[in-house]
């Protein structure tokens, strides 16, 4: 199993080609389906290999993949929120703050009116800060980085202040957490595959069979499809929806134009301001929804429960080169490594092995078939990183304490390898005055 026989097209669209090439991307041609299948099989093969080499059943256990899914959704959602505003040309560093607003409002709505209201409350909480950001950044034209950073700090302070006023007075609430939300949104499982709707649970049987390959396939499949919250399903469905809106609809065209070349949009009669307003508001709503999702998982608002996820979402957004598919890839990478990190140490070792093999393979491939003239520059860092990780896998005992840094280190490593291919929207951060300024 080497990376050799794959045509180069399977790799490049997910990294490089921005807006132009991507209209065709949503059409699942048979070649793309085949490529996706091949990558999935390759990944599964690697996982199985790692499971036996590192003797880590955790890496293919359904519990790991279930929590990977749960951890992926909020990151993907908040990064989608960032994608909305950044594709329209507004830098959004305030995602974390919007998420905090989401968790707080979700806690309030949830205690008052149940789990569905909590999700709605998340959106409302995000929107509060979205409006603030839109007014300051779009109407007044204040530096977007400053506004974003301020929103993060303000949201944290105001959430604590308001929690003292609101939640402390409630039965069972304190300054640091809201009363428990009664109930949860329904959880679903796929029929037959993972025992949804009263059908037999094939993947659980497969996982407990202990046969090589079959058990691992069952574990991964079951983890991803069993007992998934409707909120997570909603969140995951938003990703293709965003992709469709971005690449296929008239609004998507205006949206991208506002971020790439606002003057052109204006010349063609579109309104940059209206487009940016919509984008920022929808984006903040999504970030707030991610907060609401977190609140649902923890059954109530807890102070600091976002734990920097907004920033990770921002990193994922850049990592995914401002495309929905890239963002989803980045978010799942982060989610998986987070899930592995909270597991047992040998699971972490297995992950190190998988990464080492991938990095080394990418490095070798770039050295042999990369763009002439850049082969050394592109290939060597990747290869070196792969070899180092292999050495870590073979010789260094990883203490359990380092596992909390796993997702960050993994994201950083992948960034280093991917590197140099990012292209932000051209007009990111550029202010467009509403009309010619007279003063």
């Amino acid at each position: 199993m080497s990376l050799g026989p794959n045509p180069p097209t399977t790799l490049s669209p997910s990294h490089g080609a921005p807006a132009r090439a991507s209209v065709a991307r949503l059409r699942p041609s048979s070649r793309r389906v085949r490529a996706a299948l091949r990558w999935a099989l390759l990944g599964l093969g690697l996982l199985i290999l790692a499971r036996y080499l590192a003797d880590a059943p955790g890496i293919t256990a359904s519990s790991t993949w279930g929590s990977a899914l749960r951890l992926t959704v909020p990151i993907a959602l908040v990064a989608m929120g960032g994608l909305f505003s950044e594709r329209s040309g507004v830098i959004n560093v305030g995602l974390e703050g919007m998420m905090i607003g989401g968790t707080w409002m979700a806690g309030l709505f949830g205690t008052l009116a149940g789990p569905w209201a909590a999700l709605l409350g998340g959106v409302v909480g995000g929107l509060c800060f979205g409006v603030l950001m839109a007014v300051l950044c779009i109407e007044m034209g204040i530096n977007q980085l400053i506004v974003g950073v301020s929103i993060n700090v303000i949201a944290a302070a105001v959430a604590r202040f308001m929690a003292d006023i609101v939640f402390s007075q409630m039965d069972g609430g304190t300054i640091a957490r809201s009363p428990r939300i009664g109930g949860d949104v329904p959880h679903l499982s796929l029929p037959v595959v993972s025992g949804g709707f009263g059908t037999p649970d094939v993947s659980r049987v497969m996982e407990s069979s202990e046969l090589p390959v079959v058990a691992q396939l069952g574990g991964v499949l079951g983890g991803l499809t069993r007992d998934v919250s409707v909120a997570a399903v909603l969140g995951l469905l938003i990703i293709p929806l965003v992709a469709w809106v971005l690449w296929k609809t008239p609004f998507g065209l205006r949206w991208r134009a506002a971020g790439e070349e606002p003057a052109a949009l204006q010349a063609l009669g579109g309104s940059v301001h209206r487009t940016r307003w919509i984008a920022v508001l929808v984006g903040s709503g999504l970030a707030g929804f991610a907060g609401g999702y977190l609140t649902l998982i923890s059954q109530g608002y807890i102070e600091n429960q976002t734990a920097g996820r907004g920033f990770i979402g921002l990193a994922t957004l850049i990592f995914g080169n401002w495309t929905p598919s890239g963002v989803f890839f980045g978010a799942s990478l982060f989610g998986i490594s987070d899930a592995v990190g909270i597991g047992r140490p040998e699971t972490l070792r297995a992950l190190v092995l998988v990464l080492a093999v991938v990095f080394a393979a990418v490095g070798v491939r770039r050295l042999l078939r990369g763009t002439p003239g850049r082969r050394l520059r592109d290939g060597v860092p990747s290869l070196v990183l792969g070899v180092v990780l292999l050495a870590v896998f073979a010789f260094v005992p990883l203490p359990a304490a380092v596992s909390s840094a796993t997702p960050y280190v993994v994201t950083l490593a992948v960034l280093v390898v991917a590197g140099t291919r990012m292209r932000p929207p051209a007009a990111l951060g550029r202010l467009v005055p509403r009309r010619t300024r007279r003063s």
Partner: protein
Amino acid sequence: MTRRRTLPVGLPRRLAVTVAGPFVSVLLALAVTALFLTAGGYSAASAFSVMWAYGVQPNSLVSSLNGAVPLYVAAVAGAFAVRMGLFNIGVDGQYRMAALAGAVAAASLPFPLAVRLPLTLLIACAVGAGWALIPALLKIHRGVNEVITSILLNAIATTIVAVLLSGVFRSGGGQNTGTALIDDGGLMPALPGVGTGQGSISSFVVVALLAGIVYYLVIERSVFGYSLRVAARSPEAAESAGIRVDRKIVQAMLISGAVAGLVGLPHILSVAGRFDGTLPTDLMFTGLAATLLGRQHPIGMALGAFVLAFVERSAQVLGLVQLPTEVGQVFLAVVLLSSAVGYWLTERADARIALTLALRRRLRAARDAVAPGASSTPTPTGGASR
């Protein structure tokens, strides 16, 4: 800035604009905080009066000054990067790594104070600069945005510090979760002759002062600072003028990181006496507020840092009178934003005034041209603005 060069601007007005910016910002923040207090059912007026009465006591003022020092250093660290067009959001990780290194160095170096203290500062600077070097190198060699690498590195620094603290540098066992206590030969002495105990001022004020002076000299008065600012404004122009932008990025991040390395030391060497869980974690954002409040001007940032520290200190009294102490946090957060809004407002107002004055002058000139003999008396505004 947005002010037109063709409009003559009198010194009094320029001064007024400079002062009005921070003033309006603080007023705005006070107003918003009052709004929150009122919404929560508290009396804003009584809260502010209690805070003011507590804040202007001599002990509080001294404590505010000591609290302003790390904020000012953080502000200078941020400003170095901002002047290069970079956003050093990694100050957080840099100062925590450096604080741990500084605490260990101060506790274990076998030298007298005169040698140990400068060495401690140097080591902290080096660690901070080293941690800031990673995003800089990744930016220029791999093209990865420095904001995201810094964010990731902040999280990684948290883990590294935790692992090092629990595994390597923890002194003793059991409940003790800090590094070894630093003896008197490693602590920063108080400023001589200005009170004792609670009322003493740490000599870190001098360090902060030096940092401010160095910042001013490097950025405003040196070729290096000039090329830095050119590279920030227009990388293309800088490249074609022979300035190597890549190198400037690395240098700016190194300096910013080195200064950031000092941020945590006042707490280590003057307050706690060791590295433990009490090191404040919000110094970067509050320092950033000071950067913005002072518009990256060395004196402006100092005033900003003092105002922020003053509020932080005086909010502590609110708990005694049954008011939420979170008011201080809200104020600090809001001032971050209102500093931007305040400057926006004053600049617009300034532009408006300039426009009105110019129009009036134009009209008068037209009138004079029509009736040359009628008026030759210069009006006071016209005279002042010329």
